[in-house]
């Protein structure tokens, strides 16, 4: 088994942004968990970092973890940690995707078919 190994400054940035944390304080966050801002934007008293504020701004419309990561050019794992902070402090609410057991809902399939047909 070979691994690609390199020292890349881009690897270090995510760790600095999260202050070395790899797990969110709250929540787990799938790639397609949707987040949206609640209440007003965080003020300076919240003591948040610029990356937190960027995420909060993106969350003015419902947006997935994957999209936040793509828009801010940070790994999804980093976004999970920062989003966890915002969730913990009540600045965003999060909707996790349906677990597999709920894939029996005929209504959901019909809605997706209608959506695709109207594209």
């Amino acid at each position, binding site marked *: 088994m070979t691994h690609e190994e390199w020292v890349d400054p881009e690897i270090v940035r995510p*760790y600095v942004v999260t202050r070395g944390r790899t797990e969110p304080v709250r929540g787990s966050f799938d790639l397609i968990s949707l987040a949206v801002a609640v209440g007003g934007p965080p003020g300076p008293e919240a003591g948040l970092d610029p990356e937190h504020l960027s995420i909060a701004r993106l969350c003015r419309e419902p947006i997935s973890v994957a999209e936040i990561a*793509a828009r801010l050019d940070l790994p999804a794992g980093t976004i999970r940690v920062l989003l966890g902070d915002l969730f913990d402090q009540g600045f965003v609410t999060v909707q996790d995707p349906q677990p597999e057991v709920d894939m029996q809902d005929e209504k959901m399939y019909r*809605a997706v078919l209608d959506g695709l047909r109207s594209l």
Partner: protein
Amino acid sequence: MVFGRSDRRRLPTAIKILIAGGFGAGKTTMVGSVSETRPLRTEETLTDRSTGVDDISGVEAKRTTTVAMDFGRITMGDDYMLYLFGTPGQERFWFVWDELALGALGAVILADTRRLADCFPSVDYFERRGTPFVVAVNCFEGSPVYELDEVRLALGLDPSIPLVLCDARKRDSSREVLIQLVEHAMKLRAQPVGTTS
């Protein structure tokens, strides 16, 4: 809180469909042709977590791999948001597939008749996992033309699994493939409203 009225926004439910297949089979092309925007790219950084994460001096010693995934979004009214994810091609990223496949509505496996064997691992994977899937033969210019029956035979595909021709560059064609997949998944999994326990 002074924002009571708009505080509780109902969020749509996100659904994902995976677009799998070998390298160069047209996964990102298909994601792009039906999505609202050009394909976005997200990266999962996978790091050997046994190293103390607070020890910055250890950073350079960590083994780090970055897996990139292309994806797109289709908004379906107020209730649902559909995401299409191109799966990372290399088989050593199976663990990323596991995360992606969890809760997926289903998968499209793109087949390229010039390299048909490239989609065997995807077929095996989704069969084993029980994820509903369809196989779509992406018709590249200059690629050998086979009857669908021949492709089905070559892939050892069960007759119950839909096999279709497509042009991943075309929105209508990609959309038809997705419709086939959703109808197939619905047949396999859905229970009429009211009969779920």
